[in-house]
């Protein structure tokens, strides 16, 4: 099964987190927000330039930059 990342989600689509490729501070920040393996994430709104994108994570709306969202593998 090909591993997709968060950026492949279109507005309204959702998926579950498979793993985090990010490292260091941004990884811990994502984990703090509850983005761990198995968490359901929904792509809510893309900004006018396509980056950042607002995602729904455990009841909160969080804006993630493409470079960070690319590290979040989903299934």
């Amino acid at each position, binding site marked *: 099964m090909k591993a997709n990342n968060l950026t492949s989600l279109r507005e309204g689509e959702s998926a579950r987190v498979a793993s985090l490729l990010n490292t260091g501070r941004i990884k811990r920040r994502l984990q703090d927000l509850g983005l761990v*393996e198995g968490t*359901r994430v929904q792509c809510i709104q893309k900004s006018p*330039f396509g980056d*950042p994108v607002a*995602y729904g994570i455990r*009841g909160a709306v969080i804006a993630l930059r493409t470079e960070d969202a690319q590290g979040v593998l989903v299934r």
Partner: protein
Amino acid sequence: MVTADQAANKEFMVVKTNTTDQIIALAGNPNVGKSTVFNALTGMNQHTGNWPGKTVGSAQGTHHHHGSGYIFVDLPGTYSIMAHSAEEEIARDFILFGGADATVVVCDATCLERNLNLVLQVMELTANVVVCVNLLDEAEKKGILIDLEALERELGVPVVGASARSGKGLAELMEKVEALCAGAIPTNPRGVRYNSAIERAVSSLALLLEQRLEGRMNSHWLALRVLEQDTTLAAGIKKRLGPGLLDDEALWEAADAALASLEAEGISREKLGDMVVSCIVFSAEEIALSVGGDAAGCAGCGRCGGAVVRAGGAADRDRRLDKVLTSRRTGIPIMLALLCGILWLTITGANYPSRLLSDGLFWVQDRLTGFFCWAGSPDWLYGALVLGVYRVLAWVVAVMLPPMAIFFPLFTLLEDFGYLPRVAFNLDHQFKKAKACGKQALTMWIG
């Protein structure tokens, strides 16, 4: 001779005015209203500084309740206390070694599940915890209801609801803190549920530590930190619990055995760290679910784990509004229109008051000139006081006051509507090209 507590107070620079004063640590995520609670309780009886050896600011203040003194120590806002940053290390070390009589964890009612992450971690360190669920007024606006009694049952520690901004719930908070410090409330903090692989690996190590620790620290928690090879803890433990504890052959053998068994199951040390985080997150989710609401795997539809949501109206309306404010076609034009509108209002709106102020203040200057002439004062005095001090002041007030008096209220209005984060969201991409970030659009706007 100095007691252990006195030594702790000295190291963390907690100043007791009375030996009967209780020390209360105040923890919580950033932006949950922790400072509001702190300021409401301590008022002007605060002093600020830095944590010893760090560049992170600290604040302590005193609150009196029923004649007793309570020293609140405002810990840095953190999402967790895994000590991955200076702030987290400070918070964790203070809760462990700072000699606090109780810890209050302030939570945001509008995103309770995320806040429970920190609550669970704090409860692993100390049983003397009071949870303060703040921003209940905000939650109500979003149609989120929290069952505080159920939460108290699930967590095993006292829970208080508050809207610190309007002063609600603070009296109740102090009642619980007072009772807890007096030993009148037995607590049974709910532990994090770790998966079986971790539990198997940790059990023998935890047993060993329990014998050595003699109840001074949570052995299960310390065992996990030993396995994760958390070096930030070593210094603190050496100082408080003696160097012998960690310099133990048997301990490290048990640790190596545990790590080996984890490796055998395909769990590397890095993966262990991730698993620990996951277990805490899922424990928080579990509590949130059992308290009420159907938030399992929910994502951003306005529901919040740990709450019952009334007809999702508020959140849906926000989403629809966002579609207009941040979409490709309408987002940028609206933003530019608002920006130009506010600037135009500021500039043209300020002209009339500026002229009035200018005329008025310079009329006064003429009267002053008349007075100085009549009094026969020397030119240099007139020059310094009237032309120098007064005229410059008059210019500044006449020119700058009206625009500021118009711009800032308008800007604040935008902030209250929650529009400003949308501006940062829209512009982040462009600002990134200048190696800045979207939030700097706001500071640019003010400039």
